[in-house]
């Protein structure tokens, strides 16, 4: 009788089986020394299903490459090529996909939560609605540790479309797991509408004090594709472009800049900050691969 694997669902950063700091360190170790051979033998020839209900470039590619580097066979699906178009629920999807015995399911959905899932050894959240994008928050801190030489204490400032950002929410959860992380926000309503967020988040009304506070700033994309109660009006967007879009001249030399991409140069930031020494956007993309390899490897050990 085949022994059933332990089932793990990685929904949030809090589902990491180790401390965030040791995860960041392990990721950088893999980047430097390569993938541990036992991980590759653990996953060799296993199947991984990637289901992306929403468009994705970096997340999807980095997961696919990570899966391949671990020796697995990635099978990618999108909502257009699945039965969701026929009204199938996510829970049903998870139930039937388990019958094909994949080792891993990487799931991105427009809904705020992952569906119920059973009989799949490892399910990874690759972004749920506007609620969570745990792997991106991990990538950001791996990059911070790599370039600042520390992950905490840290003062990190967010600007751009904070209200709709699942990355921002995952950062808050990660900060709650770590010590001495302070989060600041500089963005107007409705992009900065965060009713219900922890009181510890500091709000800034001017760029000067925001940059004085922030060791690292994370610029978030204007997510105009997401609709809701606070539909962005032309006026709010114009205000944003006129007063909150980031220019190179705004950003102090010592401030590190992150952007999870894709960048909207007409609203988020001008091109010039891209070429600053302390702009780490390309490094985030590169670390995306190693972070996902590390996450799959560490969680894979737990499911054995």
């Amino acid at each position, binding site marked *: 009788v085949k022994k059933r694997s332990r089932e793990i669902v990685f929904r949030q950063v809090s589902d990491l089986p180790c401390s965030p700091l040791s995860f960041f360190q392990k990721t950088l170790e893999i980047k430097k020394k390569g993938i541990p051979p036992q991980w590759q033998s653990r996953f060799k020839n296993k199947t991984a299903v990637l289901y992306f209900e929403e468009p994705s470039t970096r997340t999807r590619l980095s997961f696919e490459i990570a899966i391949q580097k671990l020796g697995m066979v990635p099978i990618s699906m999108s909502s257009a090529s699945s039965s969701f178009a026929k009204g199938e629920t996510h829970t049903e999807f998870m139930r039937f996909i388990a019958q094909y015995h994949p080792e891993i399911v990487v799931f991105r959905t427009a*809904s*705020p939560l992952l569906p119920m899932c059973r009989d799949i050894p490892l399910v990874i959240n690759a972004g749920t*609605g506007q609620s969570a994008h745990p792997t991106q928050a991990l990538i950001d801190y791996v990059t911070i540790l790599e370039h600042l030489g520390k992950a905490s204490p840290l003062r990190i400032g967010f600007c751009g479309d904070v209200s709709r950002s*699942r990355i921002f929410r995952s950062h808050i959860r990660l900060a709650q797991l770590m010590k001495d992380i302070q989060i600041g926000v500089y963005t107007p309503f409705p992009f900065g509408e965060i*009713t*219900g967020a922890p009181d510890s988040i500091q709000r800034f009304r001017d760029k000067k004090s925001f940059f004085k506070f922030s060791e690292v700033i994370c610029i978030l994309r204007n997510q105009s594709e997401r609709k*809701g109660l606070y539909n962005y009006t032309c006026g709010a967007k114009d205000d944003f472009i006129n007063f909150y879009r980031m220019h190179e001249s705004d950003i102090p030399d010592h401030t590190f800049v992150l952007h999870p991409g894709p960048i909207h140069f007409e609203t988020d930031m001008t091109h010039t900050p891209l070429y600053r020494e302390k702009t780490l956007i390309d490094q985030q993309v590169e670390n995306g691969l190693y972070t996902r390899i590390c996450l799959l490897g560490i969680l894979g050990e737990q499911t054995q």
Partner: protein
Amino acid sequence: MTQKKTSFAIHNIEICDPYLEKKGTFHLVIEEGKIKCISQKEADTKNFEGTHIDCTGMTLAPGLCDPHVHFRDPGFAEKETIETGARAAAAGGFTDVACMANTNPVNDNLTTLGYIKYKAQNVDIGIHPICAVTQNLAGKKLVAFETLLKAGAIAFSDDGAIIDNEKILYQALKRVSELDALFIGHCETKSLSENTKVNLGATSFELGIDGNPEFSEGLSVFTHLFLAHQAKARCHIAHVSSSDALEWIKYFREKGSKLSCEVTPHHLTLTDEKCLTGEGRFLVAPPLRSNETRQKLIQGLNSGIIDCFATDHAPHTRTEKALGLQGAPPGMIGLETALTILWSLVKEKVITKSQLITKLTKAPREILGLPPNPIEESKVADFVIFKETNPYTLSNQDLHSKSQNSPFIGMEGFTKIQVVISKGKAAHVSGKSFQILH
């Protein structure tokens, strides 16, 4: 439907009756569905030749009344029918319920009203139809209030939809006032509430979805009560869920408005954190609120701002609720669990047993204009007998509705219904001692 009138004697039972304020333990004889004798002396009942049942540790209260249920009949037989809804009500101790109009076709015409009244004749409990305020609940054209009232409408409400035109609302209230009828307001501000599934606050932030703000209800309650005050109409506010609403209700009551309001067991005992699970059974309109607001609702109950309880029993199919935050419709069932869940407030000494029973019996009956159902000699028996129990885990086995969308499954219950006698007949029997009545 039970055909035979009921006869039995019960002994050593505590009566909790807001009409009579009897205290102590009593012995009763029920004969042919009527209360023949109530006495504190057992000897007064010894001549009764039928079944004698010892009810030590049990409580006898008038049949409960729910001013707000959705029985989905006609039109949604996959969710509930008048028959299954009545069974669920009886299982929860209710002998009278008022059914909202959001059926298919909407209860805004004599044919649908007649259909409901016809089916209501064949169930054990009292079914009182509430008719719509606007035709097809569309918020555009008013119904024929007088025609429907004379044909048996107990009240008027567009519950389940929102009247967002103040002129229509005022005209409806004026007409209701002329007829001295009851208007029941479902108070949400459409533009602030549409497309929201959870309370605005920590939960909506955590889930990254638009939240339903409490002031959506507060603003709508103000509009309803202000216009009702101008129109001198009797206005009942359904399922109050916000502190803003409580403040406006208090304000207009002090101004002398003819108003009343209800609160649901789920808004009193559950908080919006439940929605973090994404389970469809925790989605309801208005949504579950924060714990802080829940505490304010309890204060509103204690201070007398809130008049009565209502379950807002709203069945939905398993398939619909399985959609969760993806698109499950709002609504929870609650008839079977209301008493046992609300009993937790008595155990926590938040309200007294007497307050609980009053707000489940006398208060809603007075609001709806139903005749009193006291436990009194020569009256038709219309009561519930229940027993406080050790905490037990509520399960689907405790449900009698056609749907299973209860938010209370897995929670602790504290009472068990033993028997329900409605209009002189046994409507629900579950206590071992009462199996003889089957």
